[in-house]
């Protein structure tokens, strides 16, 4: 069903962008989640990075895809961890301070996170517009029989 497919496509993008925004919020919330340097048991928080991937409609034998279009929206294929080394801050009184008085902070750049959050919000808005347009089209189609 062509029109209901477009609802599902836009909805998949809304889900993915919202999850991305959740990850960004989580990164910002954990900007001060410290760890002890060189101690694998007490690692600092690692920045989470979403990986988006195109979703394609599965084609079964004998089930022809109309007009050869298989696009079915977007999905978050994976959530990876940023492997950049932690930021070391000298604070000997901190409970996580290592032997030389350094504390490991996660390598989170607040400016980058805010820019990502704005990108995700704008993409979300674009998909809401597409969803509303689909609604408009579907309602308009119902008017044909009036």
């Amino acid at each position: 069903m062509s029109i209901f497919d477009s609802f599902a496509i836009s909805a998949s993008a809304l889900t993915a962008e919202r999850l991305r925004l959740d990850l960004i919020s989580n990164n910002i919330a954990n900007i001060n989640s410290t760890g002890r340097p060189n101690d694998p048991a007490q690692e600092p928080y690692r920045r989470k990075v979403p990986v988006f991937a195109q979703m394609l409609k599965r084609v079964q034998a004998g089930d022809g895809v109309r007009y050869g279009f298989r696009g079915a929206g977007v999905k978050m294929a994976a959530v990876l961890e940023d492997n950049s080394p932690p930021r070391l801050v000298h604070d000997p009184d901190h409970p996580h301070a290592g032997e030389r008085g350094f504390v490991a902070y996660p390598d989170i750049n607040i400016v980058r996170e805010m820019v990502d959050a704005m990108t995700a919000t704008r993409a979300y808005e674009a998909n809401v517009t597409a969803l509303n347009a689909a609604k408009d089209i579907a309602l308009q189609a119902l008017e044909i029989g009036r």
Partner: protein
Amino acid sequence: MGIFSDAAITGLKKGLDAAGLRHRVMADNIANVNTPRFKKSTVVFESLLQKALDEAPVRMAVADYRHFGGGTDLAGVRPVVMRSKATSMRTDGNNVDIDQEMAALAVNTIRYRALSTDLREHYALLSLAITGRG
């Protein structure tokens, strides 16, 4: 040619079908605006329909299904989905131009409205002809 399959109704139905497909394709493009290496698709339809309409007057009579009628049959016009692989908008290989997509989305919605209104008017005329009252 029946009353429900004249050139106007056939063309309008094809147009609505193509607008629905185009909306689906654009929704997919917008959904993948942040997907690395995604390449956008577009729907080609109006030029094909115009070609079929231009060629319609020179069609030849067909007495057998193996005969060539010449020209393109209006009922046989189908929208075609094209993927543009050559361009890139950003360094991640994605080529969705969000401004272009949103503008085309608005145009497509209005086009769908126009076509559906036209089809409704057409059926209203048929209804008037059948019943004698509007």
